[in-house]
């Protein structure tokens, strides 16, 4: 997934090969598939032979035996978040992107994370620290840790991520990381229990983030943070999406008061909104917020370790 070297990088010269992980994009769903010369993909559009895919560029439209089609995309952490199997509730792009920015994670950083969960955020951390940094992630559930390890192998980031089985709330982070972490991320039911250990792990001015769905957890975490941390800030972030529609207006009825759009046949302006190939009527593109939207994911509390 990550562009570690020129052979994995997407480019005009790099086509789909046997063994690649691709994201199969149907109209409303996506899934991750490993390309295997002799395999097929079956869905409501028909049967797709993997062998047809090999040699085509990523981003191609491929057809089934029934004439239906899907797109094959190169995997990215964003796409992976949308297709991975949920063993736990995961973080989505709005929270993930804000966390990475606010924790100031850049290549070479050492990041500690607990819990691993389904590895959604972990994948983005790996991208951010690549190629010289590392992510040490911990989960107390042995099976989930194993599933996460498998996923990181599949997506090709296992050289950047080490998964440990450990109860961070009870035992804290391992001493070997003391004073070495640039950032610590906590997604735990009782993060205040892990905060003292996180403090020991962090470099001076290192960043910490705790993600909690409930405000009581946030209050308790902030109380605990106040002794050794500064710049404590809590946010929530949501993404509102818009739907776009083109509304063609018929200008045969000029006087009905509806035609506030550009007059017919005037297509000189480069910024005209007339759709391509449309001569007779003009159209307007309108946007409206999507009716369904997420109301809450969790509160993000950030802090910096005090400089002594």
């Amino acid at each position, binding site marked *: 997934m990550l562009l570690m070297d020129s052979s994995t990088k997407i480019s005009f010269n790099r086509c789909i090969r046997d063994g690649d992980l691709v994201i199969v994009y149907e109209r409303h769903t996506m899934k991750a598939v490993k390309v295997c010369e002799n395999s097929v993909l079956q869905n409501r559009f028909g049967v797709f032979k993997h062998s047809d895919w090999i040699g085509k560029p990523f981003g*191609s439209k491929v057809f089934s035996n029934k004439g239906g089609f899907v797109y094959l995309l190169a995997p990215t952490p964003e796409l992976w978040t949308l297709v991975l199997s949920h063993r736990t509730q995961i973080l989505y792009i709005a929270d993930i992107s804000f966390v990475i920015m606010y924790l100031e994670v850049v290549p070479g950083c050492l990041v500690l994370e607990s819990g691993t969960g389904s590895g959604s955020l972990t994948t983005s951390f790996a991208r951010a620290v690549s190629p010289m940094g590392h992510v040490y992630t911990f989960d107390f559930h042995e099976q989930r840790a194993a599933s996460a390890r498998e996923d990181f192998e599949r997506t090709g980031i296992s050289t950047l991520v080490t998964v440990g089985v450990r109860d961070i709330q009870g035992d804290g982070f391992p001493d070997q990381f003391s004073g070495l972490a640039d950032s610590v991320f906590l997604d735990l039911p009782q993060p205040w229990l892990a905060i003292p250990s996180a403090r020991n792990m962090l470099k001076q001015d290192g960043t910490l983030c705790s993600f909690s769905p409930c405000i009581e957890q946030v209050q308790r975490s902030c109380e605990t943070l106040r002794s050794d941390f500064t710049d404590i800030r809590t946010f929530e972030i949501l993404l509102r999406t818009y739907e776009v529609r083109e509304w063609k207006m018929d200008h045969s009825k000029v006087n009905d008061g509806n035609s506030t759009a550009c007059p017919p046949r005037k297509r000189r302006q480069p910024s005209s909104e007339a759709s391509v190939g449309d001569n007779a009527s003009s159209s307007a593109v309108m946007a409206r917020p999507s009716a369904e939207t997420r109301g809450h994911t969790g509160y993000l509390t950030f802090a910096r370790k005090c400089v002594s």
Partner: protein
Amino acid sequence: MSENKPESGPTVNPRVTWEGCSVLLDINDGDRLVFARLSAGSTLKIGNKTFSLQPLIGCPFGSLFQVESGKEKPYLSRFIPPTEENNVQDEGGCQLQEESRDNRAIIDNNQAQSLTGDDIDAMRREGATGNEIVEALIANSATFDKKTQFSQEKYRLKKQKKYAPRVLLRRPFSRSICEAYFKKYPARIGFLRVDALSLLLSMANVTANSDVLVLDMVGGLVIGAVAERLGGTGSVCNTYLGGKPYPMEIIRMFNFNNEICKRVLRCSVNDLCAVQNETSEQVSQHEDVCTMDSQSDEKISLSVSTEEVHLSYKNGVSDLVPENELSTTGKTCKTPKAGEKAPKEAIQSWKENGFSSLIIAAPEQDAWSLVKDLLPLLTYSAPFAIYHQYLQPLATCMNNLQLEKMAIGLQLSEPWLREYQVLPSRTHPCMQMSGSGGYILSGTRAYSNTSQS
């Protein structure tokens, strides 16, 4: 002491300041934000006094400084807040149940404080510290004891900010730079809020070893943020319409080392789109003839413009006029320059392989006309993210991309960000909030038989 600056490997993550480095000074907990370059002669003005910034050189980022009265004049001294102070809030929490005071009897007639301005000046002349003045004000306030616990804390904080201001030494990073500009000069960065910036970087899959095409008309903030994520690998191509690159002064706040600066290259849209067989003379002719509007240059340069790069193409060779340094304190350290003209090999490589992603932040341009020209430069399945202040241009662009089948997975989103005050018994969303951080159109370039590379 430039020897202290760690140059190990391509990472830039130095945690200690050095002479010549760029810093962000946070005065009184976010009340005022100032960018500065540290040198023996650089100064900072707080109120009506000027302080030397020399004590800040060689200190860790995150250090706190307080104004102290010196023998000759006040100076900035390193200050470590005692842990008791940080626990004041917690103590307040414990006493909450017993809080019986309220403000019913407090009348605001400006007569509660018995110390006059002259008294305070006299105290200062006698060498009283800021904290001592604050304590004296509290002792001489007739209404202080009648205030609630919270009210007392607020009062103390207000006096401390005035009489014992504190300066926090912050490291300039895309996060802090974006927040500072968004607070002070949002128009210069096209009202690009920090969460919108973070989304651009994620949605465009900016990572090490990628070749990112960026059209940045927000002062160089996006280019800087991309370069930060590349960490000295890959490349970022700063592209522009017409012959003159857009102002990029913000990039100089980042403290980029040589390795990272080398990766930031510039190339005009015309040069990128030029057919391979064209000679460089023909290319430079295009440059002169094609004058797309560069009015945005002037708009963005309204405030301090620290950098003007003049280019003249002669057979593909450009003569660069040296940039003007921002610092009024003069140059003590040569800062490496980002944004050099892309060499032929780089342009060739980009044409052969395609860019791995695209970010457009041109809040006053029409999105579709830019996307039309730039999308074909991306490799297939490459993600892109376009930021705009207004919804309509992105809606139109999205519609056109769908009709032309140029992209899939299109999403038009608006980030919503709210900050919370979290204090015992006083937890609520902050009273102030940003109304908008702009809109983002994201998607992935699709390949179809009609696509041309």
